[in-house]
């Protein structure tokens, strides 16, 4: 589905360029659920914006394998869910409108569009809320609206940027299972970025572990946990504990010794902003 090779990204600054991604390579197979986890300050959001075609790369390639599309602009087959639901929804539009707007260019018929919106809202458990405004809903419900907008768009590939970082623990668990179910039903390919190791292991078929900035892929861990997964059953497995320890070790490994070339200037500023 997606092939990322030697992806690099640095930002021009007044001084030396700020290198965020040094060398990131991994693949996502069709139907696979890949999670990307890294310490705060790793270029997770930058990586995601490069993959979604929202940010030009400094080097390397990002290719949608199926069609051979080089991702230079946001591709048709990709939908995104962003971290901050309060900023990613349009407060002046009702929930139904929010979900509908991206469909205007893909579904010409108004009635059909309306039905697609209804179906998507039902899938995320929000039927009956089409006429509410986003600010009338709880945080978890708002993020459901963002998810409904993404799936109504009928993407093949769903990219999510820390989608559950701003909700409470119970809501988070509910939303995680919602995403698993939707992905199962729609046969979606999913890439989800998170800083939460449990979440990365719980959701993913594979976990891509990023280093500190400038980021490289430290390792890719296969998650051999049975599906369907459950918050209690899966997280209670000894294998789950082993995997999360393995990922945690990779993340907390002292960066300077294992990646001697890593340039750590400006690190503290990035920590503050993420």
């Amino acid at each position, binding site marked *: 589905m997606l092939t990322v090779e030697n992806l690099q990204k640095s930002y021009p600054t007044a001084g030396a360029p700020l290198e965020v991604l040094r060398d990131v390579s991994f693949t996502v197979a069709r139907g696979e659920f890949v999670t990307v986890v890294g310490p705060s300050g790793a270029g997770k959001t930058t990586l995601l914006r490069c993959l*979604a075609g929202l940010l030009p790369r400094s080097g390397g390639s990002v290719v949608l394998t199926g069609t051979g599309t080089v991702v230079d602009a*946001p591709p048709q087959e990709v939908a*995104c869910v962003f971290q901050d639901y309060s900023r*990613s929804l349009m*407060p*002046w539009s009702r929930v139904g409108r929010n979900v509908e707007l*991206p469909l205007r260019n893909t579904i010409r018929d108004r009635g059909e569009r309306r039905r697609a919106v209804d179906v998507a809202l039902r899938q995320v458990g929000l039927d009956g809320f089409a006429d509410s*405004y986003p*600010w009338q809903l709880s945080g978890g419900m708002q993020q459901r609206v963002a998810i409904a*907008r993404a799936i109504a768009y009928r993407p093949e590939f769903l990219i999510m940027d820390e989608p559950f970082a701003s909700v409470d623990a119970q809501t988070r668990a509910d939303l995680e299972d919602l995403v698993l179910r939707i992905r199962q039903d729609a046969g979606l390919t999913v890439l989800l970025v998170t800083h939460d190791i449990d979440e990365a292991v719980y959701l993913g078929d594979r976990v891509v572990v990023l280093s500190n900035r400038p980021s490289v892929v430290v390792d890719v861990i296969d998650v051999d946990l049975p599906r369907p997964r459950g918050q209690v059953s899966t997280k209670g497995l000894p294998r789950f504990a082993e995997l999360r320890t393995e990922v945690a070790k990779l993340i907390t490994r002292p960066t300077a010794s294992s990646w001697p070339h890593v340039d750590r200037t400006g690190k503290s500023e990035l920590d503050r902003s993420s």
Partner: protein
Amino acid sequence: MTAAEAVGGRGRAAARVLVPLLVPAAIVVVWWFASAASTSPYFPPLSRILATFAEHWLGDRVVSDVLPSLGRMLAGFGAAVVVGVGLGALLGRLPLLAHALNPVLQFGRALPATALVPVSIAVLGIGNVPKILLIAFVTVFPVMLNTIDGVRGVDPVLEDVTRSYRLTRRQRLFRVQLPAAAPQVVAGVRVALGVAFVMMIVTELIAATNGIGFVTLIAQQSFRVSLMWSGMLLLGILGVAVNVLFALAERRLLRWYSHARED
């Protein structure tokens, strides 16, 4: 709830509405009686001012003066809103151009609008069109500058959303950027409305042939004091009415904004 409490509650509700009306009512009553026997040439009885008001401003002058005044103001103001929002949206998307024009725009905003009245008369002459053009010119700046700020202030996350869902330029402008900028645009439009009202009056005080301001000034110069007072009264009422209507429209238009902010 007991009956006494219910009465008390209703009494308090009535008091809440009535108490603020005491002073306005008192002012009118005092004005009425204090001026009733007035022989001062400057302060005619309120009853005479109101009679003059009814005779002139509810009579022929509606067509000959009131409508021309309001028409010129609304034409200039309306044009300024359309042009200001359009240019503002354009410049908001072209930061370098906005930067290049910054001194010109800031000068245009800071220049006291009234200083341009003689210029407009010299270049464009008198009559309706020069007045409308002048009102439009001076009110376009607050609208345009606020629109630029608003359009540039669209949340980057929302910009990412519109791009990742491949909205067209048109959709992005009309469905996202302009709605997001609406609070600031409306603030600019409110300033523009105030300026338009002042300019409506001032353009009629210099080289005009009709209009509420014109009649009021001529009344003062020809010592028709009741007519002057009634003209001022009308201008005051119109000033309040225009602002109240705008506030109502604003509240409707920006309902999402106040709610979303409370959140």
